[in-house]
């Protein structure tokens, strides 16, 4: 199974602000978006993240999986993750 790797030096502040050191681009994330990026940062797998969400949020597995994939697709679109 492929693993999702955030690129180097990527940190999300408490306010959901993301400053990319290498390119100077800035992004804003909502609370759940920040949470997912932080978990990816600490090398959590997709399964772990989905589990965390279904346990802590009012959300079903299908929805969080679909939304997770969409967020990852966007992170990819902005070149913030690499998939190996």
């Amino acid at each position, binding site marked *: 199974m492929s693993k999702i790797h955030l690129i180097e030096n990527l940190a999300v502040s408490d306010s959901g602000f993301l400053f990319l050191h290498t390119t100077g681009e800035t*992004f804003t994330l909502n609370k759940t978006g920040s949470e997912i990026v932080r978990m990816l940062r600490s090398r959590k797998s997709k399964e772990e993240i989905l589990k965390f969400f279904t346990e802590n949020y*009012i959300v079903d597995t299908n929805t969080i999986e679909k939304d997770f994939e969409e967020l990852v697709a966007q992170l990819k679109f902005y070149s913030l993750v690499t998939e190996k």
Partner: protein
Amino acid sequence: MKKKLRYERPTITKQYSGLMNKFGSSSLSRPTVDIDGVSIKSLCEGYGSPLFVISEKKIRQNQKNAFRIFKNRYPKVQFAWSYKTNYLDAVCSVFHQEGSWAEVVSDFEYDKARKLGVKGEHIIFNGPAKSEAGLLNAMKNKSKIHIDHFDELFLISELAETNNIRAEVAIRINMDVGIYPIWDRFGFNFENGESWQAINRIIQNKNLKLVGLHTHIGTYVMSAEAYRIAAYNLAGLCKRIKNEFNVSLEYLDLGGGFASHNTLIGQYLPAEQLVPSVEQYADAITNGIFDVSFKSEDLPTLILETGRALIDDAGFLITSVITNKRLTSGKRAVIIDAGVNILFTSFWYKHNIQLCQNSGVHTEDTAIYGPLCMNIDCITESINLPSINRGDKLLIKYVGAYNMTQWMQFISMRPNVVMIMENGKVELIRKAENLDYLLEQELLPKKLKLIPV
């Protein structure tokens, strides 16, 4: 068990210079959960989605308000409901109960008004393409026929002669009032003297009785001043007719064309900031008439064919989200179950779209597409929306004008239309179409039948 947190779809938004403002353009802070106190959820449960909803209360308020504003400024005012704007029986009837005449532009609209019980003399028959039978019928009923061109003038004259009727007519006049485009394809031109020529011919014709003058300067006219000029010109003609022929006209018809709350595509500022109020239009029109001094007994009745401005905000479209998509450009798209076939006004308005349930505060630039399998089916190219899920409802406001007449059955059928009555009761006023309705008009030649009967 520990309490779970409310979930919001995770999002990431890149900041671009010029658009770095979290308060930028979200107008969707609070969800709209009801219309006139009836919950949107219950409306959908009862009548499906998409669903057109019309507020009886709002129509009556709009009509009463407009009448009061004009009446406060001018002694003789008559409204005529513009059928083409929305000719559902229930809608027309509310206007007629409020005292409005009918303004129709085709034979079937004419018949519809008669069926609803509108008296012949309370129907204004406009438009460039009236049939011979339609004209004769209208003449017999003493309706006001507004002549659009010379061929029609000759035809009416001939019909009146042959049938020994004196037809009550007015002419439609087009003019330059400083707005663009000039609607010079309708009626007789003011500046080049064509309208005066038509007036002359009518007055000298014993079978025709000139009762009024009519103009309709445009649609979605944002300049009140243009109406002042139009009213002044019509009133001037009216006075000239009195002076030269000693004929007093019964009325001046200033047509319609007032702008509504909707913002046009390509207009930078929202309509609410630019559109004149009914008071401003009324001031302009009545000042225009008063600028030509009439003796009080010669003062003509002022007729208004206001359509859009009286019905647009009384109509709502409830629609449901089918899915969310991510386009290859990175932009988000939402597909809803209402397409341009029922929301024609999407081609010219940036519609006001409201959320109907609590959603996140984080918004994203989104395109909204309809359900049709056609690329043109785009409700809006760009709106800031928070994350919404399949099944969530959106409410499109200000859709009462033109949609329920210009809609078509195409790929999907036309949905239910309900009216929320003043007492809060919900009445179905037009049933959703189905296959039987569609097939009712079709005939299949025998040799083409696949199933033997």
